[in-house]
């Protein structure tokens, strides 16, 4: 059976999980909170968790990491059966510059969301040049080692960007 046919046969729901090549799994459908104010994000996350979503995609640039994280914590308080491990929280580095700034910025994001760790941390864009990308990526790798981040990845990378950073990037995604 072809890959497309197999995918068509599958049933998709908020319970569907995808497997990553580092062996971990995550929900297939996430709530996006791009361009939401803190207040909007907070109520959207609560609605989403109620509906059965277990993944939220935020970013430093959205300026709502705090409200997203707190909405998750609030929900968990009301639903003690729900474990932190069942939630998948994504956020992204606003800009690639140097290692120290990136590493500090990741810690700041962890603090901001209040969730203890970030499930998926992405470089938001390839901007800044190759050195800035690699230095920022090294910060993501170290944050994984330090337990602040579970999985690393990239965003808005074209084929060339993926290719040039592949040796490192494919280690975690």
């Amino acid at each position, binding site marked *: 059976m072809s890959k497309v046919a197999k995918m068509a*046969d*599958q049933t998709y729901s908020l319970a569907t999980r995808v497997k990553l090549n580092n062996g971990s799994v995550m929900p*297939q459908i996430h709530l996006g909170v791009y361009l939401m104010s803190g207040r909007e994000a907070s109520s959207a996350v609560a609605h989403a968790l109620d509906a059965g979503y277990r993944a939220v995609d935020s970013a430093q*640039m959205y300026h709502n990491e705090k409200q997203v994280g707190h909405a998750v914590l609030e929900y968990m308080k009301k639903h003690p059966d729900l474990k932190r491990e069942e939630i998948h929280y994504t956020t992204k580095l606003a800009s690639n510059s140097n290692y120290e700034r990136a590493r500090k910025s990741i810690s700041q994001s962890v603090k901001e969301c209040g969730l203890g760790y970030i499930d998926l941390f992405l470089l938001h864009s390839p901007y800044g040049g190759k050195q800035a990308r690699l230095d920022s990526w090294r910060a993501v790798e170290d944050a994984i080692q330090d337990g602040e981040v579970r999985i690393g*990845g*990239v*965003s808005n990378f074209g*084929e060339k960007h993926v290719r040039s950073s592949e040796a490192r990037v494919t280690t975690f*995604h």
Partner: protein
Amino acid sequence: MNQIEVHPFNTRTNLTTYCQQRDIVVEAYAPLARALRMKHPTIVSLAKKYTCTPGQLMVRWSCQHGFVPLPKSVRKERIVENADVGGFSIDAEDMKTMDALDEYLVTGMFWVARSFEIVPLIVCARLGSGGRRLGLPRRLM
């Protein structure tokens, strides 16, 4: 993991194929094309055929391609609706029809700032310094 803009109007086929061949999961942002093509005749007719909403059709298309769609909505009904895609399955031919809608429609964050009157003020306020740090051309901010 590479998160990029992907929907039937911007399929990024080369890039998504490249990623998937290498086991890099593709996360699809703007899976609903920011609601800019909800009234497109093909979308409307396929939604009718599968008795779903245009939004559900597009999320399901994303899932069937093996992507991880990130639909955005602030409204409770829409949040529920967007993820309720288990009741139908798009057949192979209709998947191809949807793939062929590709027009490289880039709805990404910087485009939004150029296309509406009010949004750019908000976007600039939020992205102003961030945009400069990213080294974006002024006209894109």
